[in-house]
């Protein structure tokens, strides 16, 4: 993991036009065109922002174009490509990571908004529950193509944290009650922000339920 720490510091000063399904990376032609057409704003392109992210326990100092999403910072600057870019609009959940233990869509937040924050991605090691989820997904065949899987597992980890905190869901009958059981219905509702194109949902539900059962 440590050999990935060194940031390539690749400038992404016109990573713009991230459209649905778009992948980041080699779009130099389109980017140049955008810069020329956008000459009035060129002065703004000079801005970079210095931030520190603590990713999976390791501190990284980065100098970024302010447009860089947390997801692009992880993937393109820290080479942590476990977190996936699916829709890039917060609809599919493939980019799910945890910030200070809370799951969010890394594609819908700027890295600059997370200066100093602790980020957990699928590459994290040493978290027993994360490891248990990874094992359970393999045991229960909780995927086919695997593209959504890092997001599913990080989301499940965040979901179990929320359950620990007693947070209710839309399907919780008594939201004033203290303890709530993690039924299949609860898992489905609480995981609805993660889409699986292969529809491995039944096995994903089983994998998550197993982790919760073995822990309790």
């Amino acid at each position, binding site marked *: 993991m440590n050999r990935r720490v060194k940031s390539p510091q690749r400038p992404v000063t016109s990573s713009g036009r991230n459209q649905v399904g778009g992948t980041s990376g080699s779009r130099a032609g389109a980017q140049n065109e955008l810069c020329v057409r956008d000459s009035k704003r060129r002065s703004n392109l000079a801005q970079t922002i210095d931030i520190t992210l603590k990713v999976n326990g390791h501190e990284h100092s980065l100098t970024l174009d302010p447009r860089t999403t947390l997801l692009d910072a992880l993937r393109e600057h820290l080479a942590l490509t476990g977190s996936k870019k699916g829709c*890039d609009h917060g609809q599919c959940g493939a980019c799910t990571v945890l910030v200070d233990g809370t799951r969010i869509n890394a594609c819908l937040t700027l890295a600059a908004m997370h200066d100093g924050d602790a980020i957990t991605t699928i590459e994290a090691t040493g978290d027993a529950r994360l490891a248990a989820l990874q094992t359970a997904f393999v045991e229960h065949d909780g995927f086919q193509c695997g593209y959504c899987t890092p997001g599913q597992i990080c989301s499940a980890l965040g979901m179990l944290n929320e359950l620990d905190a007693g947070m209710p869901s839309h399907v919780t009958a008594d939201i004033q009650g203290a303890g709530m059981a993690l039924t299949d219905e609860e898992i489905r509702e609480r995981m*609805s922000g993660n889409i699986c194109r292969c529809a491995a949902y039944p096995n994903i539900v089983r994998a998550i339920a197993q982790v919760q059962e073995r822990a309790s």
Partner: protein
Amino acid sequence: MKAFTFTRAADAAAATRAASNGHAAKFIAGGTNLLDLMKLQIEAPDELIDINRLGMDEITTTPGGGLRIGALVRNAVLAAHPLVRRDYEVLSRALLSGASAQLRNKATTGGNLLQRTRCYYFYDTTKPCNKRQPGSGCAALGGFNRVHAILGTSENCIASHPSDMAVAMLLLDAVVETLKPDGTERHIKLADLHKLPGDTPEQETMLERGELITAVILPPPPAGRQIYRKVRDRASYAFALVSVAAIIGEDGASRMAFGGIGTKPWRVPAADELRAPDDIADTVLAGAAGHGTNDFKIPLTRRVIHAVLRDQNPERS
């Protein structure tokens, strides 16, 4: 995404001043709607003012027995707060029915109120939209308008307001607290915050340039059972076709607010005086008009009103 400068405000007053100076400055809090729109260049601010570190994230009781919710309280935190779950269940329920867990963890109270419509044509920059580009026309009229409004529309715009949270807050007579760039605060009834589209659908709220929502204040909890019922195209993670927030008293009196059917969160106080479901529906739906593929929302709203009252009083059905 268009280039912008990124600044972190030192305090709320500095944030409002900065936002009033820039010609196209925006506050960013959760960013779940703003960044989505910036990637499509529907929003293209020159400057983003990060307000995430300004505090404003506490939920406190007011001297009057109500609740003051900081503008930066995340939707998930608000929904799970013990006092909200106990005293304002309709608000918890509305929040939990919206978006996904990841989005609720990030989205804020203030930002939720200011989120923009999910009209397909507002999002499609190849189509005319008076809200996105004033004067260009409305592709939703005569287009696919299944998710669009049947109340409060104009010939220029039929986009529905997407929030669940705002519907519950409207029912609860919430007041929005703001700070203006000149340093003055004001309190705006949530009922007055959003504007009808009229001839200027691009003007969605009565907030002035640089004005920052700092909190939402709820009056003391109302008596009666609180209900949020949301009808949508899938069981989770979908916007409302029709939603009803309701408080029903032991005597059968009710008050309701509606989502999915209005160009703003919708409430007709005159209906509070009525008891018969059809009378309530007639009053709420006065002036309602479908636009083709959303015609179904008129009978659906009536049925949801019936269902909410029937579930509360089973013997009446």
